[in-house]
Structure formats: C-alpha cells, structure tokens
C-alpha cells in the first residue's frame, strides 16, 4: 500500500511518541555518566551494576516465581472455568457468569488491590495471625486478576470448536473425560497458551495490586523499582527497564505469532466452506 506524504508524517509522529521514551531509556542505559543530557560514551557498566545488586536480583526471582506460579494456576483454573461456562445449558446463567468474570477486568486496579488487601487482613485477623500479607496472598491476588483474561482467551476457542468433536470421540470409545483430553484440549490449546502468556505478562507487569497485597518480606520487581525511585534514580534502573521491555516484547511477539497462525487456519477453513457452498448452490 502506498501512503500519502501527510499520512507518512502522521504515522512517523505516532511512532515517535510511542517509542521515543523507550528509545531514550535504552540509549541512556548505556551512558557512561549519570547525566540525562550528555551521552558521554558507551558502557555496560550499569548492566554489570544491576547484576551485582542482590536485592534487585532477589526481586527478579520473586517476580518470576510469582508470575510462573500464578499464571500456571490461573490458566488451569481459567480453562476449567471456561469449559464449565461453555457447558452451561441456561443462556441466562451463562451470560451472568460471563459478566461476573469480566468485572475484575474493568475494575480499577487500585480498587481490586485495596479490596483484596482488606479481605486478606480481615481473614488473617479472624484467624489471629499477626501478619497476614505474604507470598500466598500475592499469589491469590495475581490469580484473581489474571483469571478473567484466561477465560476470555479459552471461551471463544471452545465456541469455535465443532460440538460434534467430543461426541465423536465418545462414540469411538473415549470416556467423557478422555474425550476432553484427547480432543477438546488439542482444539483449545492455542487459546490456553495465549491465556497463559497473558497471565504471565500481567503478573510481571502488575504494580498496584501487588503493592497493596505484598507483605514485608516479599518484594517484586515493580515494587523494588518504586522503592528505589524514592531515593535517587541511577542508570541501573534504565538497564533494568530496558531488559524488562525486551522480555515483554519477546513474549508479545510469541503470543501474536501463535495467534496469527490459528487465525489463519480458521480463516482458511471458513473460505473453503464458503467456496464449497458457492459450488454446491
């Protein structure tokens, strides 16, 4: 497609605004001095510095641990929930459940964070615990906000699936459970994987809810960065932010590519059916 000059300029401007901050971050993470105005030479010093910072590294480990465990659990629970919602016979019940699962998505993070914190403290007090916020509470919080995204990814795949597939599997000798594993899971796998990646990135990304539900001993990376910015900001932070940006970018690319693939397949199948219909009619 050929673009007119004006739209070229416009597109360039949009891209500039989108990526200029990240570009600046990237450039200055390699700056020899701490200055934000003068680039005095290329160095990997800040990256080395970053990897010497035990606190930060521990926060990275915590973040990854939390992201992996919460995304895996959220994916398992979300897939099960989607299957359950899909099998509901009553349209109204299904619509109601759909809405309920969507609420955490549109709820502002700060409200989700505060309400979760309140609940954890309340339940903790009920059982007489001195400190009620810890890894477990963060895990629950992260599962809570990832769950709707997983459901949102898996449910459409179930709806696209030919209803006769699990029946065919049972007809050919599978128990209902086995039919689910052998036929339904392979069919919805792209949605499950996209859901997993989304849950993972959401967990990596989250600051607000984590901030409210984190205990003293457990610090995630976003919270660590926030705490560090309270003092002076060193280019070490730019290095960290640059790495995070590229990790998230890689995940996004993977998830988009795998989604493209299934979309293409679906499209091809639809085209084929249309062509067949045209030929028959």
């Amino acid at each position, binding site marked *: 497609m050929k673009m007119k000059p004006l739209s070229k300029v416009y597109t360039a401007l949009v891209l500039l605004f989108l990526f200029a901050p990240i570009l600046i971050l990237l450039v200055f993470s390699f700056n020899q001095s701490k200055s934000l105005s003068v680039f005095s030479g290329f160095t990997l010093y800040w990256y080395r510095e970053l990897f010497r910072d035990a606190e930060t590294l521990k926060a990275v480990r915590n973040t990854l641990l939390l992201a992996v465990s919460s995304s895996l659990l959220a994916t398992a629970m979300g897939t099960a929930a989607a299957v359950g919602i899909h099998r509901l016979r009553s349209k109204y019940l299904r619509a109601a459940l759909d809405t309920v699962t969507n609420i955490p998505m549109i709820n502002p993070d700060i409200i989700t964070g505060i309400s979760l914190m309140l609940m954890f403290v309340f339940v903790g007090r009920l059982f007489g615990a001195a400190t009620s916020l810890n890894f477990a509470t963060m895990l629950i919080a992260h599962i809570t906000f990832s769950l709707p995204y997983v459901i949102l990814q898996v449910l459409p795949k179930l709806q696209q699936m030919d209803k006769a597939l699990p029946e065919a599997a*049972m*007809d050919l000798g599978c128990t209902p459970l086995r039919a689910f594993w052998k036929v339904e899971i392979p069919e919805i796998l792209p949605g499950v994987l996209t859901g997993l990646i989304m849950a993972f990135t959401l967990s990596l990304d989250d600051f607000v809810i984590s901030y409210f539900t984190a205990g003293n001993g457990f610090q995630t990376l976003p919270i660590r960065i926030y705490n560090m910015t309270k003092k002076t900001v060193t280019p070490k932070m730019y290095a960290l932010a640059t790495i995070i940006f590229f990790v998230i970018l890689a995940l996004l690319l993977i998830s988009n590519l795998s989604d493209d693939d299934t979309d293409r397949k679906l499209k091809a199948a639809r085209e084929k059916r249309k062509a067949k219909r045209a030929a*028959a009619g």
Partner: protein
Amino acid sequence: MNKIIELKNVTKSFDGQVVLDNINLYIYDNEFLTLLGPSGCGKTTTLRIIAGFETADEGDVIFMGENINAVPPHKRNVNTVFQRYALFPHLNVFENVAFPLREKRVPKAEIESRVTEMLHLVALTGFEKRSVTSLSGGQQQRVAIARALVNNPKVLLLDEPLAALDLKLRKDMQQELKKIQKATGITFIFVTHDQEEALSMSDTVVVMSEGRIQQIGTPVDIYNEPKNAFVADFIGESNILDGVMLDDRKVSFAGHVFDCVDTGFGKRTPVDVVVRPEDVDIVPEAKGMLRGVVTAVTFLGVYYEIIVDIKGFKWMIQTTDFVDVDEHIGLSIEPDAIHIMAKSEYSGMFGDYSSFSMEMDEIGELEEEQLEELGELVDPDEPAEAPAAESETDA
C-alpha cells in the same frame, strides 16, 4: 431376520416440547434403514438416542436383546458418521481412522493393517499422512466413514452424511455407501430429509413427522401405498383429493365415479385419494373422465409439468405430450393409478397445487439457507439437543 435394535415407546421432550412421541421401531440385522422426514421431525433425535448422546424420557432402547438405556456412548457397539464429519483436526487421516483402535489398545501391527484396509475400502489409499483439513468434502466424508467402520460396529449411524456434498458427489456417495453396506454386512441407520436419497438407498424407509412415525415400509410400498396425506405429499408429488368410497373398488372424487383396486373401506366412507402426477393420461376433452383448463406449463427436460384447473382444484400432471396454457383437456385415470387412504389428521393439508409455483419453492429454499447461515453466526454454541439447533442441522 434378527432384530438388532428395538425402540419401545420412546418419548423425548426438550424444554417441554415433545420431540419424539411414543416411537416404536424394530431394526433388523444387515438392514439399510432410513429415517426420513422434514426438519424437526425427530429423526436426528432418534439417532442420537440410539448412539447414546441423548437419553429417552420414557421407553426403552434394546440392543441385541439387552436394554441399553443406561449404557454410555463409548460402551455401545454402534458408531456414528456425523453430518459435518467431526474429524479431529489435530490428527492426520491415518490417525483419525486409527483413533478408535488406539483407544482400544489394539496392537500396533494390527492397527496398521486395519486402517490400511479401511482406507482402501473408502478409496483413500495414499492419503494416510494428509491433514484432514486439507481434504475436500467428499474425502473428509470418506475418512469419517472409515473411522466409524474400523471398529467393526454392529450398527452404523449416519446423520445426513451427504447433505454438505454437491449433487454429483452425493449421487456417487449414495452408490458407494450402498456398496460398503453390502460388503460389510453392517446395519446402516441413515437419517435424511431427501426423499430421493431415501428411496434409492434403503431397504426400509421410516417416514417421520412431528415426532411420530407415519409409515414404515420398503421404498416401493411407501411410494405406491402411502398411508396418509403427509407421506403421499412428502414422498414425490401427489394430487390428494377428498373422496368418498362408495363401495369396494368404487370411489367418487372430483365429481366423477372411478373404478379403483382398493377394498375394505366400507360403504360411503370419506377418504383421501392420491393420484400421482405421472399416472394421469391426457386425452381429448370429450373423452376425459375429468375436464379442465391448463394454467401453467413447465418444461423439465424429460417431461412437462403442467397444472390443470379442474373445478377449482389444481392438479399437477407430468406428461411428455405438449399442451398449451389455456388449452381445455380431458384426463383419464386407470383404476390401479388411484390410491385410497383413510382420513387422517393431515387430510386437507397437502396435495393441492393452487399455490404451487417453482419460483416460490426456490425462494423458500434460499430463505432456509440464509436462516441457517444467520443461526450459525448469531449463536454458534446453542446446545445440540435443543430443537432449534436440530432444525439447523436438519436443514
């Protein structure tokens, strides 16, 4: 002949709507039986009850002398060919056909030989490694048949398996299915709304309407001796008239007393009279038993289809002689061309071609297709059991 399946007083309703109303049916070993009826007549539900996907509200399903009401689908010795094939997209052709054998933990070498044999039977040798999504509709159909047969079921259930194929392919597959049935000796239960398909393939045809069986018989019986106006109208074209049976072999209709071959209705009994369009002879007006005016002529290649107005009742007649619109003609009907039926709830609903026009038929068909399309778009996950969804798959 051995009864292989018996349905006894099977009743089923969805959301308070009766879909099957006291169905009684025997299916014999080695038989090619067709369940025939319009959308929503309950034929697919009957099939699903035999397969085990639905349970009857009342009544029993007997399989080889055993009640299988509570037996789940995976333990029944029947297999199904689904309307949209339901092949597993993540498996190739070979693995699709091997699926039931792998489930049964059949030894590898045996799987290899049985799948190869099956693919040979459906003429798909050489397609083993192909992805099922890359196959044409006809080829997917063959894979579905091979997959359903590889387990050597006692009964094969086919749910409108040819509906998605184009006309020529459909004819070929009809022949092929019949051949496969003969070769394997497996009982086929075939669901269709296409009367031509039913007549050409079946040993026994079961005509259904509104959840009830209207008639069971051989294709010839069903065509020549329809039991009521519904069957007469649904199978082929029929002129159905109000008549009075005056005595054995004497019937009065359209203002004329005809000789016929039917007996046993008693004297002066109101009846329905069926005359097939191809059984009416056109004669000069003076020689006709009935006289009328031609109102429409359609050329259909082998014959003309003409509509004749006789005292306000429009007859359809198929003839190879050309007659013109507005021509006055006489009709002559042989005694054995007249079929007498007892009055039924369907009397008076069918068999008059007053509103008949080819154009109307086409419009009707188009709408149905569009509705189906819309239904798919609007609500792809309607439960398959619901009557609304059934009409979609039946269409």
